[in-house]
């Protein structure tokens, strides 16, 4: 129900509107000033009260002054609503400012929209959404007012506010069917985006409020006292091998932003504050915000806003590099002992150990020995407090086996932030980036940073990788002299880093994608089915329709040797990743025994041929040549890759394949294909039978075959197709000669001769290249070297009367 008539917030708001109207202001000011002038004459002497003359007019003026004070300090800033849900009437739960806004516009949603967009946060929304008032439709067609009120209530509940705020009114206007919803939809802004932008506006408003509110309790009481450090000891050794986070926060060298980690932060400070085990191990992948939790806690401690036992502590972060540098045998242990003694004696140190797995022997060559034993006795005592950080792989491999070391910690897991939480983190970070780079950030830029980082930067987790991406893009935008960062700028950085096109599809690219088959056919002769399958995969990926949790495409190319399987893969790598060299080619016959799995996945001291290549460049085409020759165990390993797009390597690290295209080739069934062609049977209709026979012969397990997006049959090349292949190969030679300013003319007879002689029914088109090398390029090379062919000459390749290839040179 919504009935403002007798609702207290609306009564106050109506009173404010009347009392603050221009007319009322003029009258109030006139009475007040005239009264003040008159009252001034009443005070003959303030030292002798018998001389003070307070007549009725002066008295009333005095009362008016008291009333104005009451109005300004009480009525103007009053919020009298009941929390949402306390009464049946939503009007009882309005903030006074929201009630004022609604009263000024009435139940006309168009007018409410105009009034809302004219407020500070309305303007902020327009600016950050990249809109102007002109972009907002102002026509009719709004849903009902009751519907609007229902949406407002839903938004307030969703955000968890106790009262309906002005921001909720704007959100409500976006959720209710009407021109505003259509306008923002036209500009690709969702209702959730709008709520996120309003959260951003609220952040900015709060920041301004905090800047001026020095009288607030937390600002006044949270002052570090002069004697805080008088009882705490010096930390000379520790200072050499650590970074003082507290000092860096004080000097503003680092800033802490924390959104959505309240639970973890709270848990951390509770553990650190209690007796018994009071060390914390923060467990989470790179980028989830482990360091941020530590910094935020250090900041709270610095401001005295934590639980009393950890107020005004010094947060020192162990610097392993300086601890280990230049240390000879036994010296590291001595250094560790000294710094631990410092930390214990100081009495106010919380030691932060990043990548604690290195203390337990991870990363050969970094820490020679296991240092956990040295730490353990200190950690068991009550004088040292530690926050250690690690990721899952490090935890599993190096920390978990050290049971007693692990027992000195309470483990707090930090999961990856959701996209929505990450956007709100970026909104908190945004003001600092804007000031530092002098660039205005738009909401679309923030959203793109989160979405593209999640999609294309698999090495780290949200929100860390989105912050890094936003920061990098802001630097580039500033360097380019632009004033505003948009989604396109973020996409440009991602494209540069990954070398794959992201962001909106441009017109030339759209044209290329729609005619991809023709482009691929410039390199590949025939094989319509294969070309069509891979072209569709690229279009799906580029249009954003593919499943993000799997590789871009997983294909099995079946067919005889030399029919274009590898060439198609190269053409695909060039078309999607921009370079045919972005291909990880593995000869699977090298993985024919179960023991060869280690070569593929790596292990201690050994890099995996597959995992390392994809870790180095996740944007690659993986070509598994002759997959049928790999051991069954090796083949099984790919089940997970094809299904989940990820694989755990020999050291426990997860490798991401979701940006890879995987193509397996096999000669299995080649004989069957050849027979079908000879018998002029239709390849497509016989495909099921062929696959059935492959399955029955045990070459591939059914579960593996089922995981391919498509199994493509490559047919043997026909003579006309071979002629086309020859023409393509000679075209490449023509290009190389043209670079030396020599023209090449080839007769049809010469092409036909090469096709007939160079083709091998067993090896397909593969020997053609060798034939051209031996019989054409070899001859040309000699002529170039002996000087019979020079710059500007034309070579004609033909067939002589005897039917052999011949060359003629025209000067």
């Amino acid at each position: 129900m919504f009935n403002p008539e007798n609702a207290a917030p609306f009564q106050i708001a109506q009173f404010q509107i009347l009392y603050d109207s221009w007319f009322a202001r003029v009258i109030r000011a006139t009475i007040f000033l005239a009264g003040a002038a008159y009252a001034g004459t009443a005070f003959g002497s303030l030292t002798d009260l018998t001389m003070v003359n307070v007549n009725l007019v002066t008295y009333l003026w005095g009362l008016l002054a008291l009333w104005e004070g009451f109005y300004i300090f009480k009525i103007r800033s009053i919020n009298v609503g009941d929390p949402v849900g306390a009464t049946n009437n939503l009007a009882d739960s309005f903030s006074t400012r929201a009630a004022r806004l609604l009263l000024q516009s009435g139940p006309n949603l168009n007018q409410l929209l105009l009034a809302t967009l004219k407020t500070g946060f309305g303007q902020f929304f327009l600016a950050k959404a990249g809109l102007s008032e002109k972009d907002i439709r102002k026509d009719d067609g709004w849903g009902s007012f009751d519907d609007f009120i229902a949406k407002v209530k839903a938004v307030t509940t969703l955000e968890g506010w106790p009262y309906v705020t002005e921001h909720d009114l704007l959100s409500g206007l976006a959720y209710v069917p009407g021109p505003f919803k259509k306008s923002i939809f036209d500009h690709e802004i969702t209702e959730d985006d709008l709520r996120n932008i309003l959260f951003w506006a609220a952040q900015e408003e709060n920041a301004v409020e905090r800047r001026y509110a020095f009288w607030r309790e937390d600002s006044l009481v949270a002052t570090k006292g002069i004697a805080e450090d008088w009882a705490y000891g010096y930390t000379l050794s520790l200072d050499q091998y650590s970074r003082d986070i507290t000092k860096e926060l004080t000097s503003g060298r680092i800033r802490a932003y924390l959104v959505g980690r309240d639970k973890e932060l709270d848990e951390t400070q509770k553990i650190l504050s209690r007796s018994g085990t009071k060390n914390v191990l923060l467990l989470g992948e790179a980028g989830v915000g482990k360091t941020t939790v530590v910094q935020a806690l250090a900041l709270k401690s610095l401001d005295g806003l934590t639980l009393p036992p950890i107020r005004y502590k010094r947060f020192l972060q162990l610097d392993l590099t300086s601890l280990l540098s230049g240390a000879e045998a036994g010296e590291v242990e001595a250094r560790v002992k000294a710094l631990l003694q410092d930390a214990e004696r100081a009495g106010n140190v919380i030691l932060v150990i990043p990548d604690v797995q290195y203390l337990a022997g991870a990363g050969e060559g970094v820490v020679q020995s296991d240092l956990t034993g040295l730490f353990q006795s200190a950690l068991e005592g009550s004088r040292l407090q530690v926050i250690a950080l690690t990721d899952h792989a490090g935890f599993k491999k190096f920390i978990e086996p050290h049971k007693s070391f692990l027992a000195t910690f309470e483990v707090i897991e930090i999961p990856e932030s959701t996209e929505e939480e990450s956007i709100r983190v970026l909104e908190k970070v945004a003001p600092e980036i804007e000031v530092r780079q002098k660039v205005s950030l738009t909401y679309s830029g923030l959203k793109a940073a989160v979405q593209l980082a999640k999609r294309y930067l698999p090495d780290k987790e949200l929100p860390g990788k989105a912050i890094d991406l936003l920061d990098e893009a802001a630097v580039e935008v500033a360097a380019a002299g632009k004033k505003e960062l948009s989604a396109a700028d973020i996409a440009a950085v991602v494209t540069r880093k990954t070398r794959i096109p992201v962001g909106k599809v441009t017109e030339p690219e759209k044209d290329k994608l729609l005619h991809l088959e023709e482009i691929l056919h410039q390199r590949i002769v025939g094989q319509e089915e294969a070309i069509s399958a891979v072209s569709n995969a690229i279009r799906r990926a580029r249009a954003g329709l593919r499943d993000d949790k799997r590789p871009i495409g997983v294909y099995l190319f079946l067919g005889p040797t030399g029919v274009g399987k590898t060439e198609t893969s190269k053409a695909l790598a060039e078309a999607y990743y921009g370079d045919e060299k972005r291909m990880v080619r593995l000869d699977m016959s090298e993985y024919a025994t179960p023991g060869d799995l280690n070569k593929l996945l790596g292990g201690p001291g050994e890099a995996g041929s597959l995992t390392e290549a994809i870790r180095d460049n996740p944007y690659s085409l993986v070509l598994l040549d002759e997959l049928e020759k790999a051991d069954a165990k090796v083949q099984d390993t790919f089940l997970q890759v094809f299904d989940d797009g990820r694989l755990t390597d020999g050291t426990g690290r997860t490798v991401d394949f979701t940006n890879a295209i995987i193509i397996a080739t096999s000669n299995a069934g080649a004989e069957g294909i050849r027979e079908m062609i000879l018998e002029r049977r239709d390849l497509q209709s016989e495909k099921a039978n062929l696959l059935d026979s492959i399955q029955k012969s045990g070459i591939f397990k059914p579960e593996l075959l089922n995981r391919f997006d498509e199994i493509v049959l490559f047919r043997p090349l026909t003579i006309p197709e071979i002629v086309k292949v020859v023409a393509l190969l000679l075209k490449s030679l023509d290009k190389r000669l043209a670079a030396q300013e020599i023209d090449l003319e080839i007769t049809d007879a010469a092409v036909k001769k090469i096709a007939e002689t160079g083709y091998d029914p067993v090896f397909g088109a593969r020997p053609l290249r060798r034939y051209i090398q031996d019989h054409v390029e070899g001859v040309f090379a000699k002529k170039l070297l002996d000087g019979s062919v020079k710059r500007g000459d034309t070579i004609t390749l033909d067939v002589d009367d005897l039917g052999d290839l011949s060359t003629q040179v025209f000067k």
Partner: protein
Amino acid sequence: MNFSINLTPLILTLPILFVKFWLFEGPQLILKITWLLARAIAALFSLPILVRTFFSPWKGEYRRGYVGIARGVGIVVRLVTILVALLVEAGLISSGIILALAWLGAPIAWTVLFLKTIGVISFV
């Protein structure tokens, strides 16, 4: 069309709100700010820590032979700091109380002066 709001209940309660604000909320606010400032001063001078660590050696000194001297230095410095802090606190709290009383007394004094002017009461 606009909403119609019934202002009568608010206007009737305004005098009560005013009296409540002047007699209770206003002085309460002044005393609260005074109390906060007093706590801020106590925090600035680290009064609780000074008391708790009154006999602790200066800068946590633990080397044999230096502990006694460090303890002496600590006691002297802390004692001086505590005395200065108490002096500041006393000044602040008394100022807050005077201000709160002045706030409460202002309308009464104004009324008394008015009554004196119109001859209802006399100071003599």
